[in-house]
Structures are given as C-alpha cells and as structure tokens.
C-alpha cells in the first residue's frame, strides 16, 4: 500500500461565489500526525469534510490510500475513523447502543464496542442516554466511535472542545498511543495550538481557504526556537569577542544593533562583562523567541487577521 495516505491536488469547495477551500494541496504520509492550523472560517473543517466525503468537491482531486476513484475512496474511508464538528449520536440511545448501531452497520467484531468504550473511559456509563451526557462525555463517545475497529487513519476536527484538562491529557495520550503502537495516521484540526504542538509531526497552516505553509515539527521548532538577544552599539566588535573569547559560533547579527545567540549558555552575564571591558556598550539583554501561536499569527499577517 502507498505510503501517502491522503493527498489532495488543488482541491476546491465553493458555495456560490465564496471559495471555502481554494486549490488546496496537502499530503499526509503514513504515521504522520498532521495538524491543520487556521483561524475560524479558514477552511479547516471544509477540507476535512471533503476528505471524509461529507461534501462533494467543486474541483481538484482527492487521493486516499493511493486511490482516486469514487468506489475506491469509499473503500478507503472504511479504514478511517472520524470526528467532524460536534459528535452526532442518537440522543435516546445509550453510549453502548449508539456504538452498537455503527458496529452493525460496518460489520465490526462484537467486542469492539466494549473495547472502544473502555479505551475512552466510558465503560461505566451503563444505560445513561446520550442526551444526558456532558459535553466532555459526548466528545469522548465521538472519539470512541472514531477509534472503534482500529482505523488506519483518524480525522479529528476540534476533538478536545469541551474536555477538561484531565480529559485533554488523556486524549493526547490516546492519540500518541494509537500513533506509536498502531502507526495510525492522524489528520487533526484544533484551535488549541499548545496542544497540537505536543503531538503533531507536520503542520499545515491555512488562511482564507488556502494553504499558507507546510512544515515538519522539526522545521517549526527551528523557526520557533528561542535565542538570547543582546543589543549593543558595535555588532562587529561584539561578534569578534564572542568568536575569539568564548568560541561561540551559533549566533547571528540581527539588524544594526542586535546579536542573536541561538545556543543556551549557563553564564550569559560573562558575555556582557567581556563586551563592556572591551568598550562595547550593552543596552539590553533578554531571552526571546516565538511559540506556535505567535508563529501562526506572524505567518498569516498579524493579529488583525487571526
């Protein structure tokens, strides 16, 4: 089977004249945890719905597990577990009966329902009906349905909405466990960027229906790394001091008056002391850097767009 699990080629979805998704091309490889990052209305959910077949595309091509024909896409989707927007279940049925409905529909094994419920911690809910569940329990049941029958690919849209901090941690552990132990590929969208940064291996940044950037988590870490910023009046002399006196090579001159030292040093005050002794005036020293949220805001063009 192909190593590429999902590939979209210039896929589009238009509602009248409005393009919710425009010429979007992404590639998700087996074993990836691919995070879709974008502001509200950026097109994340629409893209996920296109992948899941919930809405027909207006243009472009979708490939799942290396196949593009309608029949093969449907077959590919039978290996998927999904949770798109709010979990949809029958309010008058219990958690077990709701999952049993889908187990029968998919022809899954009998034990899968109990296994899935135990996996998300809902095995003790008994005959409590779905309509009486808390938001967090509903999300958990949605996740139970998604992971039932051991899917090769998980599609999750804002899956941690409504979960408490404990639930979020448990959810993260579940995703990582599935990914590491069963090589489950995950395509996930969330507004909680801090959470995404703890699990994602690849990021796709979306804005106004278009992919703005793809990066691996390593590349993103590199882009978001922290550094020591020293503002001086003579960057050339300060650079020489760093190189010759401290053997520091991993630094760069940023603008006319600043140096960025990318490695961590235990006693940065020694740099300041050496600069001052050699006639370099130091105006500010501080540690700086950006997190995923700041990187995203910068990428889409400032907070007014976020």
């Amino acid at each position, binding site marked *: 089977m192909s190593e590429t699990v999902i590939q979209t080629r210039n896929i589009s979805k238009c509602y009248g004249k409005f393009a919710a998704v425009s010429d979007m091309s992404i590639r998700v490889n087996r074993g990836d945890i691919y995070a879709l990052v974008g502001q509200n209305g950026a097109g994340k959910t629409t893209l996920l*719905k296109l992948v*899941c*077949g*919930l*809405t*027909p595309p207006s243009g472009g091509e979708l490939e799942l597990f290396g196949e593009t024909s309608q029949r093969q*896409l*449907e*077959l*590919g*989707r*039978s*290996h*998927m577990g*999904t949770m*798109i*927007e*709010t979990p*949809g*279940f*029958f*309010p*008058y*049925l219990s958690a077990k*009966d709701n999952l*049993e*409905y*889908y187990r*029968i*529909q*998919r*022809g899954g094994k009998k034990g899968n329902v109990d296994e899935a419920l135990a996996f998300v911690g809902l095995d003790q809910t008994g005959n409590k009906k779905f309509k009486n569940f808390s938001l967090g329990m509903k999300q958990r049941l949605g996740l139970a*349905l998604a992971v039932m029958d051991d899917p090769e690919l998980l*599609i999750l849209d804002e899956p941690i909405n409504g979960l408490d901090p404990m639930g979020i941690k448990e959810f993260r552990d579940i995703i990582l466990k599935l990914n590491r132990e069963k090589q489950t590929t995950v395509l996930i969208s969330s507004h909680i960027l801090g959470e995404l940064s703890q699990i994602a291996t690849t990021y796709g940044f979306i804005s106004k229906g278009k992919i703005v950037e793809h990066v691996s988590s390593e590349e993103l870490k590199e882009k978001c790394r922290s550094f020591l910023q020293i503002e001086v009046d003579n960057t050339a002399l300060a650079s020489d001091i760093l190189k010759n006196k401290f053997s520091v090579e991993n630094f760069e001159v940023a603008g006319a008056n600043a140096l960025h030292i990318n490695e961590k040093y235990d006693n940065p005050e020694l740099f300041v002391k050496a600069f001052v002794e050699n006639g370099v005036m130091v105006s500010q020293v501080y540690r700086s850097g950006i997190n995923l949220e700041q990187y995203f805001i910068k990428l889409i063009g400032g907070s007014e767009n976020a």
Partner: protein
Amino acid sequence: MLKMIHADLYKTFHRAYFYVLMLSVSALCVVMVFAMRGGEYGNWSGAVMTGAALLSYPIFLLPMITQIVYAEDFRDHTLKNSIAFGTNRTTLYVSKWLTTIVLGIFMTVVVLAFYFGGTALLLTKDSAFQWELVREFLLRLAASCAVYIAAISMSVFFIQLFNKSTLAIFLYYAAFYLTEYLLKLVHWSKGIDYLLKTQILTICQSPLAKLQTPVVISVITMAVFFIAGIVFFRKKDFT
C-alpha cells in the same frame, strides 16, 4: 445493505417511541372493535368491510416511521458518521427507504393482528361472513401497499430536501390533502386523477377490477420521488 437495514432496525427496536406508536394504534383498533359491538357492523363481515374502508388511514402514520428512520438522522447529525465511514450514499438512501418499508409492514402486521384478533374475540361470526371477504380485503391491502410505498418515497424525499422534519411533514400532508384544491384553483381538475389521495380512495371504495390503475400510478409516483431523492441525496452536504 443488509447490515445497514439491520442497524436501523436495531436502533428502532431500542426505542420506546416506536412501541408506544405501534401499541397506541393497535389499542385504538381494539377500542374501535369494542365500540362496534352491538352495532350494524358489529360482526365479522362488518369488521372486514370496515377494515377495508380504513386502509387510507395508515397514510397519516407513515411520516412517523420516516421520522424515526430518516428525519432523526438529519436532526441528530448521525448520517455524517455513516458517510464518513465510506458508506455509498445511494446504498444508504435505499437501505433507509427499505427499512421504512420493513417497519411499515411490521407495524401493519401487528396492528392487523390486534384488529382481527379483537374481531375474533369480541364480535360474532355472522352468516354473511365468507372467506372471500378476507381475500378481497387482502387484495385491497396489497394494492394499498403500492400507495404506502409511494407515500414513503415522497415523505423521505421531503425530509432530505428540507432537513427540517416539521416542514417535511407539513409538506407531506399538504401534498396529500391540499394538492386537490390547488389543482382546482389552477383549473386542472384532470390532475386530481393522478394524486395518491385519489388512488387510495379508489382502492378502498372501487370494485377489485379497478385496482390496477391506482397501483400503476402509485408505482410511477414512487419511482419519481425515489429517483429524485437519490439525486438530491448524492449531492447533499452533511454537517
């Protein structure tokens, strides 16, 4: 497709509403039989003839079954799960349509069992009663099934067209009971001959020899709504 039908039957049989609906109608039948005692129709032949006259009433109940099988899937956003798991949309649509028919048949059998069971227990066998009357009733019932299935197709079509079950049910009843007046308003009374309401009344009241035309018109109506429903369903956005 059988798995889909099985799943929908599982869901319905785990729902109190379905039993309440079925038993309410059945109880109503028994009450009616009880009320017939001592009257002009208070015997077996009278009950069979009354039964034939009542064949138009299930039309009222059909939207309640399509509601359980189909409309609630839209309301509760459960169809998206089935589609995202790779279920072919046509298969999904057809399986729900078939499930509605299966449940309709099941309900009919139970209600008729109560009606005729009540008749056997509470009414007397009169001299006018012949098994030919029962055969005639069953033929009318079989012909009525064509109208019922056409009505199911129409109800399912309205539900998936509007997503709102209340609007769909209103349109269903309006299509049945107001179209006649609408056609009169536009001076096309000939069109009344092709309405489902006309077909079910013909089946209930006309001689057996005249049942063929209503069945054919019902089958055509069913095909139109069924195909239109599939076409819309295949293009539909699910949330």
